[in-house]
C-alpha cells in the first residue's frame, strides 16, 4: 500500500470514526449548551448502547460475522436494533436527568458533575457484573460487498455508518432548527430563566436534550460495534473523551460545531494512527484539547450559548 492509498483508506476510516464521535459529541453539546454541565455519564451511556445493540442483534439470531442477511430482513433487523438501542439509551438519559440531576439543578459548584462521574461508574460496573469483563464479538449481518478505490477498500459497514449518521444528524439539525421544541431548546440554552418566563417548559426541554443526546450516544455505540467488530465495558472512556474533545473543538453548545469537531477528531485519529503511531493517538488528541481550550476556548465555530456563569 502506498502512502496515497493509505491516506485514502484513512479518509474512509476517519469519516466512519468521525461520524461516531460526532453523534457522541452532540449529546455533550446539547446538555452543556443548556445546563453548562459536563455529563460524564454520557461516556458509559454510549457503552451501554453498544451492549444493547449487541443483545438485540443476537436476539435476531445474528451471531458474529457469520450470519449474513440481505434485502428487507437486513434492513428490518438493523432498523430494529437501532431503534431499540436509541430508545433504551434515551430512556437511561431521561432517567438520569429526572431522578438524579434535577434535584441538584439549583446546587452550585461541581456537585452535579461529580454525580455524573458516579453514574458513569455505576453503569460501567453494572455492565461488568452483568455481561462480564470479556469483550464481545459484535454481530454484523452485512453482506461482504467491497468497493475498491486504488487500493483503499470501502465496505458495506462504512456505507451503513455514514447513512445512519447522516440521517440522525440531519434529523437533529431539522429538529433544533425548525421545530417548536427545537426553538424552545435554543431559547433555553440562551437563558433558561427568560425562556421559562416566556412560557417554555424548561424541564421538558432539558429532558428532551438528555433523551436526544443519549439516544444519539446509543446509535454511536452501535456504530462502534459495527466498525470494530467488538464491544467491551471499557470502550466508553476513551471514545467519550475524544468525543468531548470534538464538542469543545467545534464550540461546545454548538450543534454543527459538534458534528464538525467529531469528523475532525475521527480524521485526526485515523491519520495519526497510520502516519505517527497508534500509541500516541490519545496524547495527540488530549494535547489538542488543551490547546483548543487555552487558545480558542469558544471552539472553531464559536459557542452558541452565552457564558452563563
Amino acid at each position, binding site marked *: 500500500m502506498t502512502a496515497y492509498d493509505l491516506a485514502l483508506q484513512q479518509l474512509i476510516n476517519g469519516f466512519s470514526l468521525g461520524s461516531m464521535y460526532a453523534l457522541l459529541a452532540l449529546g455533550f453539546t446539547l446538555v452543556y449548551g443548556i445546563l*453548562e*454541565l*459536563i455529563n460524564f455519564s454520557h461516556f458509559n451511556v454510549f457503552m451501554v448502547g453498544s451492549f444493547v445493540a449487541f443483545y438485540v442483534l443476537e436476539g435476531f439470531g445474528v451471531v458474529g460475522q457469520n450470519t449474513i442477511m440481505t434485502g428487507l430482513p437486513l434492513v428490518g433487523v438493523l432498523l430494529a436494533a437501532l431503534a431499540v438501542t436509541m430508545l433504551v439509551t434515551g430512556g437511561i438519559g431521561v432517567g438520569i436527568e429526572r431522578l*438524579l440531576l434535577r*434535584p*441538584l439543578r439549583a*446546587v452550585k*459548584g*461541581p*456537585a*452535579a*458533575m*461529580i*454525580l455524573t*462521574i*458516579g*453514574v*458513569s*461508574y*455505576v*453503569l*460501567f*460496573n*453494572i455492565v*461488568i*457484573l452483568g455481561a462480564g469483563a470479556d469483550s464481545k464479538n459484535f454481530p454484523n449481518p452485512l453482506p461482504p460487498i467491497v468497493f475498491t478505490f486504488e487500493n483503499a477498500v470501502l465496505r458495506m459497514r462504512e456505507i451503513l455508518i455514514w447513512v445512519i449518521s447522516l440521517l440522525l444528524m440531519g434529523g437533529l439539525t431539522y429538529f433544533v432548527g425548525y421545530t417548536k421544541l427545537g426553538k424552545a431548546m435554543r431559547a433555553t440554552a440562551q437563558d433558561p430563566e427568560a425562556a421559562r418566563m416566556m412560557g417554555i417548559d424548561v424541564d421538558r426541554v432539558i429532558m428532551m436534550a438528555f433523551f436526544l443526546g443519549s439516544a444519539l450516544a446509543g446509535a454511536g455505540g452501535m456504530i462502534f460495534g459495527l466498525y470494530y467488530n467488538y464491544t467491551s465495558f471499557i470502550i466508553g*472512556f*476513551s471514545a467519550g*473523551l475524544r468525543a*468531548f*474533545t470534538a464538542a*469543545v473543538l467545534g464550540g461546545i453548545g454548538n450543534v454543527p460545531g459538534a458534528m464538525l469537531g467529531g469528523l475532525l477528531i475521527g480524521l485526526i485519529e485515523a491519520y495519526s494512527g497510520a502516519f505517527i*503511531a497508534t*500509541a*500516541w493517538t*490519545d*496524547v495527540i488528541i*488530549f*494535547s489538542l*484539547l*488543551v490547546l483548543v*481550550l*487555552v487558545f480558542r*476556548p469558544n471552539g472553531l465555530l464559536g459557542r452558541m450559548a452565552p457564558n452563563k*456563569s
Partner: protein
Amino acid sequence: MYSATKQVLARPFANMQPQSRQALGLLVLAAALLLFPFYHANDADIASMANAAAYVTLALGLNIVVGFAGLLDLGYAAFFAIGVYFYGVLTAYQVMPEWSGYWGPLAAMGLVEKINQGGPDLVHFTLSFWLALPAAALVTAAFGVLFGAPTLRLRGDYLAIVTLGFGEIVPIVFRNADSVTNGAAGLNGVASPTLFGFDFGVDATPYYYVGLFLVALLIYVSIRLRDGRVGRAWMAIREDETAASTMGVDLVKYKLLAFAIGAGFAGMTGVYYVAILQTATPDMFNFNVSAMLLVMVVLGGMGSVWGVVLGAFLLQIMQSWLLPDLNWALHGIGAAVGNDWLQTVDMVKTTQLIFGLILVFMMLFRREGLIPATRKTPPLDMQQQAAQVQRGGFVGMEKIGHWELRSGNALEVKDVTVKFGGLTALNKINIVVPEGGVVAVIGPNGSGKSTLFNVITGLVRADGGSILFQGAELLGLAPHTILEKGVARTFQNIRLFPNLTVLENVLIGQHARLKTGPIGAVLQSPAGKAEEKRARQWAVDIIGLFGNRLTPRLGQTVLGLSYANRRRVEIARALASQPKILLLDEPTAGMNPNETLELAEQIKSLHELGLTILLIEHKLDVVTRLAQNVIVLDHGEKIAEGPADVVRQDEEVLRAYLGRAGRDHVAAMAAKAAEAAAAEGPGHA
C-alpha cells in the same frame, strides 16, 4: 440508647476543655496506631494498613487541590505516577548508561554505583529512599505547576476535563517511553529502603511506620496551611474567584501553589508506594485511581482534613478487609444452604460499583461529606440577636486609627472608555476624587456606574484613557495588585465567600497586608504566629465597628446572615485591607430607612477619619448627606457634576432620571411650591 451510652461514657471527660479532650483523643488514636503491629501481628493486615496510609496521603493531597482551592482535578493519579517512576527509574535496573569518570563524584555521594553485567561497566542509580521522598515532592510539584499553568484560565468544569486528559497522557508516556521505564511490562526490582544498615525488605511493619509518619506529617501540613493565610486564600478562590482577586489574592500564584503542593503530596506518596510494591506498571495509574481518590475526598468531606483521612481509610478498609470478609461469610452461608451463586459470588468485584454509588448518594443527600469542613454554629439567643441600633457612626474607632492626610487628588480617571462589543459602556469619562474626599456617582440603571468600578479595580479592560491612583497608573494591573495599592471595593450584588465565616471573610481582606507563605505556615515561625494573631485582632476590631451587629456572629458562615449584615461584612472585609480609597457600590441597597441612616453615618465617620471614598448610590438623601461632589452618568456619558443640591436641579439629570414629561412635571411642581412658599412668607423652606 445511643445518647444514654454516650452520656455514661462521656462522664469522666465532661470537665475537660474541648481542646484537651481532642488532644486526648488524638493521643489514644496515635497510640493505637503505633502499637497496631504488636497487638495485631498479621503481616497481610499490616500491609493493608501500609497501603491504606498511601491512599490517605494521596487523598490529603487531592483535598488541597479540590477541597481547599476548589480546582476539580480528575487526573491526580498522574502525579502519583510521576513520584512512582521518579524513584523507580532511579533505583531499579532500567536506565544504565555506560560508566565513565564523570560519575565518580555521584558515586562518592552514594547516588550511583558501578556495576558490571558482562560487557562494559554500567551506571546503576541508587537514590536513597529518604532523599527520594522530598526530591520526588519537589519534582512532582514542578509538574503540578507545568500541568496547572495552561489550565488556570479555564472555568472549573473545563479544568476537570483537561486534568483528566493529563491523567491519561502521563501513563501513556510512561508506557511508550520504554527505554527509560521498561514500557508496559513495568518497573522491576525497585530498591527497598534501608535505614542505618537495616534493609526494609518485604516485611510490612517498617513500611507501616513510614506510612504512619507520612500520614501524620501531611495531616499536620494540611491543617497548618488551612488555618492560615494560604488556606484562606485558597478557600476564597474556591468560593468566588472574582471577589478573591479584588481582595488581593493573586489567583495565578495561589492556584499554582495548590497544584504544586497537592502534586508534591502525591509524588512523595509515589516513592513510598513503589518502595512497598517494588514494581509498577503504567496501568496502575489510570482514571480509576483518580476517581477513587475523588470518592475518598467526597465521602469524607471536601475541604475537611479529618474527613478525608476517614474517607480514604474507610474505603481502603472496605476493599482489603470488609469485602473479602463478606465474601467469606457469603460463601459460608452459600455452603450451608446449598446455593451455588452465594458460594461463588465475589463482592470485591463490586468495589467500583460501590464507589459510583457513594458518589451518587453523597451528592444527592450529603454533599458536605461525613465530617463537614464547616460545622454548624449554634443559633444566637434573643439577647445576642437584638440589634443595638448605632447612631452617630462607628463604635470603637479609636482601635483602627486614622488615615494620614495627603493633599492633591487620590484618584484621577481620565478619558476612560469601555466598550462591550458594540455597546459603549463608558465614553471618555473624567472623574477626580480628592484625597480625603467623598465623591458620589449616580445615574439610572445601565448608565455605567458599576462598569466604572470594574475598570478602576481591574475587572474590566479599558479601551482607552488612564486611571491614576496617587499618581500611579492602575490600568493594566491585575485586580489583586490594585488592592495592594490601596483600592478596595464592595459589590452591588454582594460578593462574599458564602461558606466561610464572618471572621474568615474579613481576614481574607487582609491577605495583601500579611506575608506568611506556605513554608512559614507549616513551620509556625514566631513571626508568622504573631502576624496571624495581629491579623485576627485587627479583624475583630474592624468587625466591632458595627457594634453588636456582627461581633456575636464571628463564627457563623455568611450564608446565614441577613442581607444588611452581609453588606456590613463586605464593608468590613474591604476596610480590613487598610485601603487608601474605598469604592462602595450601592452600600445601602436593600436596607430599611433606619439601617440606611445608620450606615450613612458610619460611612461619614470613616470620612472623618480621613478615608477617601467613591460611592455609587441611588438614595439621594444618602448622597446629599455624604458627598461633596456628585457625578451623574447616563448611557456611559458624564452628564453633570457638582454639589448634590446643584445636580438635583440640573435639566439633563432630570431628563435622564424622569424623561422629558417628568422633567416638565417636576418643574411645574417646583414652580407651584415656590409660589406657595412666597405666599406663606419667609421662614418656611
